């Protein structure tokens, strides 16, 4: 019962659905509207505020959230038409109704030209007053909501733009990345979805002539996903730079991500380290799609999985395993996120692993750039212009 009483209090102080300012020098109009809209006022549908001349009307407008102004033409000092002029200039979203003498078409026409939405004539007909004010209020609210929706949409777009910028600023996108190195070629690309997911790929040269590389996909969309991705990318890379092996990079990052993760965000990540001198690769997989291996002159293989789970889900010490393989000369390792294989067409069919493998087989062993671009091109044709809801990240490395 106590909660209900509190709720009623809140209802009484909450804003009315719409507020109407009535501007007239005599009390008559004030009495008329108070009488006509007794029910609406009681139910907090409408609130009325009053002013006696144009100057105090403008002051009232500055203080209150007014939706509709009803003004008499005859006012002390500047007349109602001047007030309409000021309204148009300073409060363009407020709808107004002018009250003039019966048959004064000239004034009415001027008022409508000055932007009045409707008019009433004296002596005032009570029903006409009711209908005119309610109609003007609805028109005003429709306009107000349209403006608010547009502002919200702009805010959402701006937020997504921020997310996209965070994401892209984290990803190396200058190619060739290492023009002075001819032992390997590397190429990556990312297509951010409409809602911006949290995909990234990353790479850098480590001490001891080794190439660190990673690909990852954060759950969720927008700024939260982008931030989660940014933190993860930096932590894994920092561990790699420190000299940790791939499974240690994932397990250390996982520990920190699990510490404060009340929203249960998670992120899949695959990271590997290539010994540039020998072609040996060590890697670890935290729940990510397994990379593909394009060996010169043979079928496409999927890399062997390691122990692992998406990061941020489970706490524990030995969750991530270490995998080893060796790249021969001319072999390419191809990393991607599920936005590629789960891209949809108009029939909501998925692109699938199989289609991806087919494209890569057709391209054959070549430059990483050709493989990445061929896949992106094929997905674009497949998806028939459907805007995708998930990011696509791709990274390919060929050992020369």
């Amino acid at each position, binding site marked *: 019962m106590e909660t209900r009483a509190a709720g009623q209090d809140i209802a009484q102080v909450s804003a009315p659905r719409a507020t109407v300012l009535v501007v007239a020098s005599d009390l008559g109009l004030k009495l008329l509207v108070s009488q006509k809209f007794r029910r609406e006022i009681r139910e907090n549908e409408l609130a009325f505020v009053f002013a006696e001349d144009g100057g105090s009307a403008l002051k009232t407008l500055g203080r209150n959230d007014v939706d509709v102004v009803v003004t008499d033409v005859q006012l002390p000092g500047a007349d109602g038409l001047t007030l309409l002029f000021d309204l148009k200039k300073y409060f363009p979203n407020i709808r107004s109704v002018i009250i003039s003498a019966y048959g004064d078409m000239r004034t009415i026409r001027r008022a409508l030209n000055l932007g009045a939405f409707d008019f009433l004539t004296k002596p005032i007909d009570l029903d006409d007053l009711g209908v005119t004010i309610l109609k003007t209020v609805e028109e005003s609210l429709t306009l107000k909501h349209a403006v608010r929706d547009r502002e919200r949409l702009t805010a959402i777009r701006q937020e997504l733009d921020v997310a996209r910028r965070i994401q892209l600023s984290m990803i190396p996108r200058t190619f060739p990345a290492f023009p002075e190195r001819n032992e390997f070629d590397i190429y990556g690309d990312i297509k951010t979805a409409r809602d911006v997911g949290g995909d990234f790929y990353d790479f850098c040269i480590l001490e001891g002539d080794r190439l660190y590389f990673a690909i990852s996909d954060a759950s*969720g*969309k927008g700024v939260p996903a982008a931030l989660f991705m940014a933190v993860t990318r930096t932590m894994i890379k920092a561990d790699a730079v420190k000299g940790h092996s791939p499974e240690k990079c994932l397990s250390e990052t996982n520990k920190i991500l699990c510490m404060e993760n009340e929203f*249960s965000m*998670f992120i899949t990540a695959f990271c590997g380290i290539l010994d540039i001198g020998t072609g040996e690769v060590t890697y670890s997989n935290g*729940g990510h799609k*397994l990379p593909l291996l394009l060996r010169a002159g043979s079928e496409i293989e999927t890399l062997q999985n390691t122990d692992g*789970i998406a990061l941020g*889900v489970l706490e524990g010490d030995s969750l991530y395993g270490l995998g080893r393989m060796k790249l021969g000369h001319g072999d390419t390792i191809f990393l991607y996120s*599920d936005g590629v294989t789960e891209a949809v067409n108009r029939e909501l069919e998925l692109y699938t692993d199989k289609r991806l493998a087919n494209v890569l087989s057709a391209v054959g062993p070549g430059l990483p750039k050709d493989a990445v671009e061929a896949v992106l091109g094929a997905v674009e044709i497949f998806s028939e212009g459907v805007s995708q809801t998930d990011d696509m990240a791709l990274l390919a490395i060929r050992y020369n």
Partner: protein
Amino acid sequence: MDMTVINADDELTHVKLRGRVDLDTIGDLDREFTRHTVTRRKDVIVDLSDVDYLASIGLRMLITAAKALNKFGARMVLLNPHPDVEDVLRTAGFDKVMPIEHDLESAREVLKATA
């Protein structure tokens, strides 16, 4: 996307999800799902046989509920996912937190064994 509670007794909550679970369809499902599963603090079987697609938002809903249940000493088992959906779950390693079973009997047994 919708959810049906098939059974809710003293030992078990058995629910079934249907359709695509992604950002566009999840709507109130997240809250409803939590209300019918976590709040009861009983073991949960989630029938996924009619789920065509599970996006990461759906994975998150399941994993959040499973982890919350674990805190109360209860577990969640996933029943009969579509092969593509199962692949997504296993790739992410989520079967370590939520075992995947293909018939109701084995799902119940997994829950009994870990009780």
